[in-house]
């Protein structure tokens, strides 16, 4: 099968959807002629022009609100934030308006709105360009949250996001953008709420998202050398969250670790742990453990930055500790 990068795969998905539906348009800073800071829209301006690839002023709240109104009136906007950090200036529009209007209108108004942005810590981007914030989005009813970890998932989940009539956060980890992977020629979509078993194993279940899926697979590979069999599950979307695939795995392994780059408190690991305790208490042979990035703003200097994110070694250690329980 052909190989392409995460970014190319996502862009192919966007291009396919824009070709089939003229109501789709993209807004953002530098997503027009420039083709996007992360090349998310490269080549599309030439095809579709300034109304469908619309460069914006630095008005994040404004264009999220504008796109909310557009989604209510017959078009299908995609907001490209470049860095998702900038969405924080638009939270009011997102949580109080976009997420609530379908409900308040008793389903008579739809909200086909995609909000995409780069997430994650790395390359000394520092604290205003390293955010992820997805557990916050998952807390809010009315929102969907997709977190692809492979080029295949990036394309398939983005197409589903664009076709959805709900507001969807589509979050792309910066350290994954140049990763290559197989992407079929023929069209496909990936439904939300279906986890991927990224690696099957017997001894312990590790749930990981985005970049941490890659890191956990590396850890699993190394542990396999010591005869430790790790099952790695990538939920792919956290709203909806496919708890059943996780429960099945825990039923088999009896041990669960959640590896998440983002903040621990009130985070993804907490929700997964709480659901598993509630629904699979008797399957658990050991405490559910979480491995998170440090609960701190993201520092700039390489040694500090490296210290606030999980890596293959800390993941290996966390798995060994859990198996020792």
């Amino acid at each position, binding site marked *: 099968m052909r190989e392409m990068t995460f970014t190319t795969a996502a862009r192919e998905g966007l291009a396919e959807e824009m070709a089939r539906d003229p*109501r789709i*348009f993209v807004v953002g800073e530098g997503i027009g002629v420039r083709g996007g800071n992360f090349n998310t829209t490269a080549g599309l301006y030439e095809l579709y022009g300034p*109304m*469908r690839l*619309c460069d*914006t*002023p630095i*008005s994040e*709240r*404004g*264009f*999220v*609100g*504008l*796109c*909310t*109104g*557009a*989604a*209510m*009136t*017959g*078009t299908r*906007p995609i907001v490209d934030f470049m860095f998702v950090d900038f969405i924080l200036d638009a939270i*009011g*529009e997102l949580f*109080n*308006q976009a997420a609530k*209007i*379908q*409900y*308040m*209108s*008793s*389903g*008579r*108004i*739809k*909200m086909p709105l995609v909000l995409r942005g780069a997430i994650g810590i790395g390359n000394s981007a520092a604290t205003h360009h390293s955010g992820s914030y997805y557990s916050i989005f998952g807390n809010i*009813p*009315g929102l*969907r949250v997709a977190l692809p970890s492979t080029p295949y998932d990036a394309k398939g989940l983005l197409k589903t996001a664009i076709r*959805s*009539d*709900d507001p969807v956060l589509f979050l792309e980890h910066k350290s994954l953008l140049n990763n290559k992977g197989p992407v079929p020629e023929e069209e496909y979509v990936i439904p939300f709420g279906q986890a991927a078993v990224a690696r099957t194993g017997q001894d312990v279940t590790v749930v990981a998202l985005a970049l941490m899926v890659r890191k956990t697979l590396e850890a699993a590979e190394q542990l396999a050398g010591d005869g430790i069999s790790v099952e790695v599950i990538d939920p792919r979307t956290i709203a909806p969250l496919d708890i059943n695939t996780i429960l099945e795995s825990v039923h088999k392994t009896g041990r669960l670790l959640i590896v998440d780059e983002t903040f621990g408190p009130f985070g993804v690991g907490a929700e997964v742990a709480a659901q598993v305790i509630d629904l699979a208490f008797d399957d658990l042979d050991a405490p559910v453990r979480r491995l998170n990035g440090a609960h701190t703003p993201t520092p700039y200097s390489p040694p500090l930055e490296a210290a606030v994110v999980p890596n293959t070694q800390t993941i290996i250690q966390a798995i060994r500790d859990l198996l020792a329980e």
Partner: protein
Amino acid sequence: MIDTPGVQLDKATVLNLYRQMLVIRYCEEQLAKAYQAGLIHGACHTYIGEEAVAVGVCAHLSHKDAVFSTHRGHGHALAKGVTPAAVMAELFGRVTGCSQGRGGSMHLFAPEVGMMGTSGIVGPCILQAAGAGYSFKLLGLDQVGVAFFGDGASNNGAFHEGLNMAAIWDLPALFICENNMYATEVPFAYASRNTEVAQRAAGYGIPGVAVDGNDVLAVYAVAGEALRRARSGGGPTLIECKTYRTRPHAEGMRDGSYRTPAEIEAWKRRDPIQLLHTTLTTEGLASVDELSRIEAEVQAQIANGFEFAKNSPYPDAATASDYIYSS
């Protein structure tokens, strides 16, 4: 025919403006009574004294045009074609309300007639109206997005970002600022050094017009011109309607600690409905009897709507979590 600067109106149109203002006035008066009677469960911000704005603007709109409003939105919903029955039922929390009881006073939704929602949060309606304009432009339709908001909202960042984007993209949008001189109890003269909202349009390179918001014919004329411009690709307009709410900010709130009875009285003497009544009768376009007949008809319409609303059932608690997602 009636002639005011820049507008020619036939009798039917003018009488309809009169009728629409009465619909709002009587409906609001009924709601104020209902609030006293405990029929309204949440907040209730009446539009009494400002009817000329919603009516003068919405008289030009079809159901395909999209209106976005704010916490003081009953008048906009009614002028856009939501029935008094559906508005009252909504405030009474009934399943027959325009938002099926989910919204109440500050969340009125009736997409069937282009009432795209009122918001309990001040500001977003400005951005959403620009967004509707964006949709209509992209789809090649001659429809318009219209935002109604107050003087207080004009100091919110949404005003700045929304007007600027509408300007640079020539969006078919109308921004109607209802400058009633107060945001709750905070005077606009305190909250803004320059109280001429219309002058802010210059910063965005779009037309800004100030108009007597209690003169429905003047509002009708200014809105008509702005809408013609918007529909023909001429871009957005900011219209500042200088008006006044003669009741407290919300029902049940004390009033007057921040404004004088004399000020309120002076504005009541400029009541928009009375002003049109005088114009019509002095210019001989309609007789007092004709107008009284309309008043009686509207009274009856409101009375029926009230009966319908208060006899409507509450929604089923089992539906509380429906419609969060599209599927």
